[in-house]
């Protein structure tokens, strides 16, 4: 992996390593969660949900394509979206742990999506103001999509929580189980601090109160309890993933690795 800034040209390239890392994180989040949702295709509880989850998956895969393409450009080593999506191994993925969690039951998928979508919507909304025109343009498209994701998943969580005893039990279990993985969404490090100081990306820790308020509002409507404060898990963004991501990548990456250069 070449991160030599010397190979890059133009004003944008000055912060290339940080920009590359940042786009990789966003792109990997979208790619991995998009793939997870696609696993519901043909298996969702109803035809309407099947199509809805596939729509959400396609939005995310579209975001991943733009972000990984731009990551490749920022890196300047000649890797395109496909090289980054299909030819990196698990330790090189930079997604948060939340998005790689298996689908579980429908409540679990919906809870995971509420946590992610509320964060992503706020993040893209802020990213629309980026000084980097490419990131701002990607964010302008993504924010519309994530607004719908938040609405779709949020309305479902309300119905599961405020539904039958069974749906309520499952929804609360999903919220409790995934809660410790939500802290990582708002972690910041040198990469983000550097870009945020230059007005290129939003400060995620500043968005956390917004996320909290919105999540609490949804949980209240769903009559679900907000989990107790607890230690947060992290590591995905530095490549320390759980056991599940490798299996996901095996399926995601199988075809281009088994048949390099395949076209159809």
């Amino acid at each position, binding site marked *: 992996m070449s991160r030599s800034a010397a190979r890059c040209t133009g004003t944008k390239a000055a912060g290339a390593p940080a920009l590359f890392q940042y786009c990789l994180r966003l792109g990997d989040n979208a790619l991995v969660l998009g793939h997870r949702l696609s696993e519901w295709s043909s298996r969702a509880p109803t035809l309407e949900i099947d199509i*809805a989850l596939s729509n959400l998956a396609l939005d995310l895969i579209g975001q991943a394509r733009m972000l990984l393409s731009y990551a490749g450009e920022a890196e300047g080593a000649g890797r395109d979206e496909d090289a980054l999506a299909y030819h990196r191994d698990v330790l090189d993925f930079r997604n948060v742990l939340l998005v790689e969690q298996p689908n579980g039951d429908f409540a679990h998928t919906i809870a995971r999506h509420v946590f992610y979508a509320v964060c992503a919507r706020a993040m893209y909304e802020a990213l629309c103001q980026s000084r980097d025109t490419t990131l701002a343009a990607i964010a302008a498209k993504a924010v519309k999509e994530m607004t719908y994701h938040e609405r779709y998943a949020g309305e479902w969580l309300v*119905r599961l929580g405020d539904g039958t005893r069974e749906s309520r039990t499952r929804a609360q279990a999903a919220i409790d189980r995934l809660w410790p993985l939500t802290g990582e969404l708002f972690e910041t490090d040198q990469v983000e601090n550097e870009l945020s100081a230059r007005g290129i990306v939003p400060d995620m820790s500043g968005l956390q109160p917004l996320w909290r308020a919105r999540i609490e509002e949804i949980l209240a409507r769903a009559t679900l309890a907000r989990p107790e404060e607890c230690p947060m898990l992290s590591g995905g963004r530095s490549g320390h993933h759980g056991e599940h991501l490798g299996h996901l990548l095996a399926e995601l990456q199988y075809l281009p690795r088994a048949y390099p250069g395949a076209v159809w």
Partner: protein
Amino acid sequence: MTGKGGGHEWPLYEVFIRSRQGLNHVHAGSIHASDPEMALQNARDVYTRRNEGVSLWVVPSTAITASAPCDREALFDPAGDKVYRHPTFYDVPDDVEHL
């Protein structure tokens, strides 16, 4: 979501789509949903994936009163021989478009 029958226990809604500003909402099909808000989301996901619309209506199917097929002759045939009801007996000025 383990209940038997899945979405088929949900009520049916009829979906109407306005494809552009200025046009009417046109019936597109139907979907199942637990309530009106979910019906709107399901309609969006099932019927507007290819840029079909700018506005959606969903209506509970039970709210629709339909004419019976066996009434067709009595209801509609009497209009068949009344061509004078069609606005075809006018000279349309050249400047009028969209007729």
